[in-house]
């Protein structure tokens, strides 16, 4: 350490000491929206899977759930009870999209997220999912394998795959 270095090291030590002891030094917490995943892919490819597999009233078609899904003839958002079989309106699809993408965040990577791992069978690396005990009597999880097409769509969307914005939503047609 040169003569010029000594006072510099002293200053560094003082700064470190102040930073170490200062109770006012806190980690910043800026606003951070959920990941910008593709809305078109969700609407056309993933939502039909979720609606079919997860939106029963005893499961996630329930307003009390943290992850709740709106679906035709099931949980609806601001829809007249006589019209519950009408296609989902834009606000409901957007709510499903926001609920799903929020759960892609929070762990190490999209593949490790609760959204992707909870519906996957435990033997395939899935996390514990209460549904297997409560509603399936210890039976299989939503996706029994990583090769399940529904799981592939979920993982693909979570990892950022995009879809043509003009894609067709299979659930948009009026009920016969």
């Amino acid at each position: 350490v040169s003569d010029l270095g000594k006072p510099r090291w002293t200053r560094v030590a003082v700064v470190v000491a102040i930073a170490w002891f200062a109770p006012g030094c806190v980690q910043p917490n800026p606003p951070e929206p959920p990941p910008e995943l593709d809305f078109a892919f969700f609407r056309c490819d993933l939502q039909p899977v979720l609606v079919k597999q997860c939106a029963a009233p005893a499961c996630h078609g329930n307003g009390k759930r943290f992850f709740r899904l709106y679906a035709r003839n099931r949980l609806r958002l601001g829809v007249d009870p006589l019209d519950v079989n009408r296609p989902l309106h834009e606000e409901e699809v957007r709510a499903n999209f926001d609920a799903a993408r929020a759960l892609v965040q929070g762990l190490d990577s999209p593949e490790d997220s609760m959204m992707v791992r909870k519906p996957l069978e435990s033997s395939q690396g899935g996390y514990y999912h209460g549904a297997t005990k409560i509603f399936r009597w210890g039976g299989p999880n939503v996706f029994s394998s990583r090769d399940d097409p529904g799981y592939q769509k979920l993982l693909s969307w979570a990892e950022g795959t995009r879809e043509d914005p003009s894609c067709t939503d299979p659930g948009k047609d009026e009920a016969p």
Partner: protein
Amino acid sequence: VQLSRTLAALFAFLPVVLTSDLRADSPEVDARVRASSYQDNDHTSVSTVGASANVEIPGAARIGASYLADIVSSASVDVVSAATGRFHETRNEVAGHAEVLLSDAEVGGSYRYSVENDWRSSSVGASSTIDLAQKNTQLSIGGALVLNQVGRANDPNFSRRLRSYIANVGVTQNLDKSTLAQLLYTASYDDGFQSSPYRYVSTSDRVFTFLERDPMTRLRQAFGLRLRRSLLSSSSLGIEYRLYFDDWGTMGHTGQLRLASDLSEVTSIVLRQRMHYQNGASFYHESYDRPYRYMTVDRELSTLWDSFSGVQLLLEWEKVGPFPKIGADFSGDFFYFRYLDFALLSHRIGFVGSLGLMGAL
């Protein structure tokens, strides 16, 4: 496997202890058992049983081992709000320590291993104390490394790492014949997964619900000052203050009064009162208007104060049958927690009671 390793390590140390000073006096052995019970109005109960044994060769070494089990049953607001029912779990913990006693110093190490269905923890520590100024001053220094594996109940695939590095220094000083002062500083750095894998946090409009997300690192620091003074011939008064702060923005103030008095040759009583106030972590909000990097519903990170009021009765007899000394203690503490900005629970009251038995061999 971990249990057997711990026991093996303790037995491996035993010859060192027993041969460390051949001039030492005969060993002093004591064994203790303890049972305690915790109950609060948030539908949580914890029963604890534990046993420990210590061997000390005066002036040479000390070694000890302990075991305890916590049996927890809870349907607290944390549990209910996560849409799950009451849970029951058991935590088992084994620990061991060994110290070499030198003329003006003591050097020791410790190990602790605990396991429950969603948490596994190993801790290794080292500590040393040095007597100075004809034993009127004592310096202490210590450190520990805690390795935690955070899991989820019934989930073999969820595992996250949390490491804690802990250091502490302290100085104890005899101020006069009847007054003792102690100054302590503790720092710890936690690195890893510190959220709950069970808790979810919603924005106030309920559009977004996230898995709770706390920062991955936390630097904690605390200063403590203790004063103890003898009163009359058979009583003492202790006063403590502790300042805690961390880089999550939490700052806590804790004060405690402790009055101990010998009621007779075999009976003594301790009265204690502890008060604590903390402001919440900077990223804790009762509700979140929009998504933030860190979001939590951990009530222990909210602004709160609490009070513990307790009494402890100690009994000690000498030369009873084959025992040079036996003892028993009973204690009970009422507590009250007031959460100032936690929507799900405004307060928590409860009681902790314990019974301990000791026998020296």
